[in-house]
């Protein structure tokens, strides 16, 4: 089976397995094949910033060939910044005043919790620029990644269900820009039972909060169309003709079950077509080692070999496409990246050691 390049290349995994490095080397490898590539990373490590000397977050930056081969690469790298994406949305929706909302300011901070949803929006905005042949996305690790998969659904629920429920309770304040008029309507609409709920909630949340929260969701609601537009992306991402999904794992990470669980819990987003990348393989090295039988070293070899074989067996059983990447003993980050890029360049077919 050949490894084809698709419009989206999505890298996911449990974190600490070399996901970002594999995604980065893939992006370089594609750019070397004269493709126009954008690499977006949601979970930036300082190493990536250093490697490309990136100082700005939230914008796509054209980077030189990191291996300095006097080669012109069409490669841009973008570090996700939720606040920046939200500003972009506010500008597009012509409602920059929402950026002043205190609660939204806090929630769009990095680690404020909106990272995944805003990443999807960013991906959509970048796709629309038509500047790229391939967008390589380095997703957040582990469950974060599942949240990301789930985010399209969450956006829909968020705007369709949660909002309707809240407006149902609080009145159609959103349609009345005039605040005092809005408040009047608000009071009118608040039915007895809801009043009770709010009075209970006020006891817990403080009196100003419910009002401010309503303002925040109204502000958020103004960017609704951009969020909903991002939903159209889901189809492209899910379509295996348009996207390659890579699930990265490493021999050193003792997480067979968790990685396999990802498939079961991903609600169909991880399929047999997902390509498994097993990083840091040392099997071929181990097999050439012949320690004295029953010595401590023999035991070490056995345990190391068993760890790797168990992992490979589990993945080969569950997925049809598995690519092994060898352990790289060179510690220099740039040399490391170079070797991995070469590995990608030599990936003619999947299901086997490169």
């Amino acid at each position, binding site marked *: 089976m050949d490894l084809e390049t698709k419009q989206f290349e999505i890298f996911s995994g449990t*974190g600490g397995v070399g996901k970002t*490095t594999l995604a980065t080397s893939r992006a370089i490898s594609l750019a070397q094949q004269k493709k126009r590539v954008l690499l977006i990373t949601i979970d930036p490590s300082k190493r990536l910033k250093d490697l490309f000397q990136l100082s700005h977050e939230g914008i796509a930056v054209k980077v030189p060939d990191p291996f300095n081969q006097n080669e012109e690469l069409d490669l841009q790298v973008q570090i996700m910044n939720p606040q920046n994406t939200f500003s972009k949305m506010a500008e597009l929706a012509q409602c920059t005043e929402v950026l002043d909302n205190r609660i939204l300011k806090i929630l769009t901070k990095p680690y404020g919790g909106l990272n995944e949803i805003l990443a999807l929006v960013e991906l959509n905005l970048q796709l629309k620029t038509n500047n790229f042949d391939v967008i390589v996305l380095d997703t957040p690790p*582990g469950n974060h990644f599942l949240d990301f998969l789930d985010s399209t659904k969450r956006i829909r629920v*968020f705007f369709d*269900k949660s909002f309707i429920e809240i407006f149902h309770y609080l009145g159609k304040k959103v349609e009345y820009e005039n605040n005092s008029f809005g408040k009047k309507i608000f009071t009118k609409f608040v039915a007895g039972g809801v009043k009770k709920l709010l009075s209970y909630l006020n006891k817990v949340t403080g009196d100003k909060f419910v009002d401010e929260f309503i303002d925040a969701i109204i502000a958020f609601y103004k960017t609704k169309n951009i969020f909903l537009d991002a939903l159209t992306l889901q189809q492209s991402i899910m379509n295996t003709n348009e996207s390659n999904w890579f699930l990265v794992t490493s021999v*050193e990470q003792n997480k067979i079950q968790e990685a396999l669980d990802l498939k079961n819990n991903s609600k169909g987003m991880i399929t047999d077509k997902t390509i498994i990348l097993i990083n840091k393989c040392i099997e071929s090295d181990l097999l050439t080692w012949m320690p004295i039988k029953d010595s401590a070293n023999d035991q070490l070899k056995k345990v190391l070999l068993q760890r790797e074989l168990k992992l490979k067996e589990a993945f080969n059983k569950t997925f049809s496409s598995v690519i092994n990447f060898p352990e790289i003993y060179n*510690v220099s980050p740039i040399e490391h990246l170079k070797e991995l890029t070469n590995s990608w360049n030599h990936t003619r077919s999947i299901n086997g050691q490169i």
Partner: protein
Amino acid sequence: MYQVLTLSFYLQLCICFNPNVSEIIKRFYIFTGKGGVGKTTLSLSFSKYLSSENKKVQYTYFTNSKLEESPHIEKSMIAQYESLGININPLELASCAQGYIAKKLNSKTIASWIIRTPFFTSLINMIPGFNYVIFLGQILQNLEDDPNLIVVLDAPASGHTLTMLEATRNFRNIFQNGAIFDDTNTMLNRMNEKNFLKINIITIPTLLSIQEAIELKDEISKSNTYEIEIYGNYSLKTHSNSDLPEFLTKKIENEQFALDSSTKLIPYNVDFMLSTSESCLIKDLAPSMNNLV
């Protein structure tokens, strides 16, 4: 008076310089780090170690992160850990939320009604991090209720832990007054108390992982004074010998290089064990867990 002073000075010296004097055991330990670095195994071994020191320990984890998500509890796994003498306390979001509101409003009935209203579900789902504040609040409440209790939290992977820790602060800033404001404020004060909380960041001994662990530590330290320590796991160093093949020697050299480049930042490295099962591994690791106190 002079004698007392000398004695206390001497004791302080002992604590500072004598490695045999054990560290003060904290009330609350958070184990975090990237996925697959061995958080669960180490936090279980750590809990086992503390139990063997006759401490009352609860190994705690979150079974779900959304109200509509059913709790993920594997009974066989819990039985396996409990047979090792580890006390397990899985936390579930709805019951934690309900418990909190019931306490605030002095009524279980009203609380169970509130958490089932669509408004409340929407509120929790729409405000990111709300779930974590509820969990953290529950843990701190458990610690308050039982002054002898020690909680070991097998926390979600790094980014999530940051969201969890940030959320408490974000919430205090969002609410500005009222019960949640007061409670998040109390939570933050409590967690910043000396010798109350320690965050153990687990990493594998590679340059990249160590660097990410350091970044996580710096990120958490930006707005808190929590005690945070980074520990290496799966260290092959102790298996080093002259009969090893070149690639393994190189691997161990790389490990050493990674550790050397971050000297003093990693006080202890947990050995790569040759144990044959997870239960054995937890038992084998437990005695060395005094290094993570």
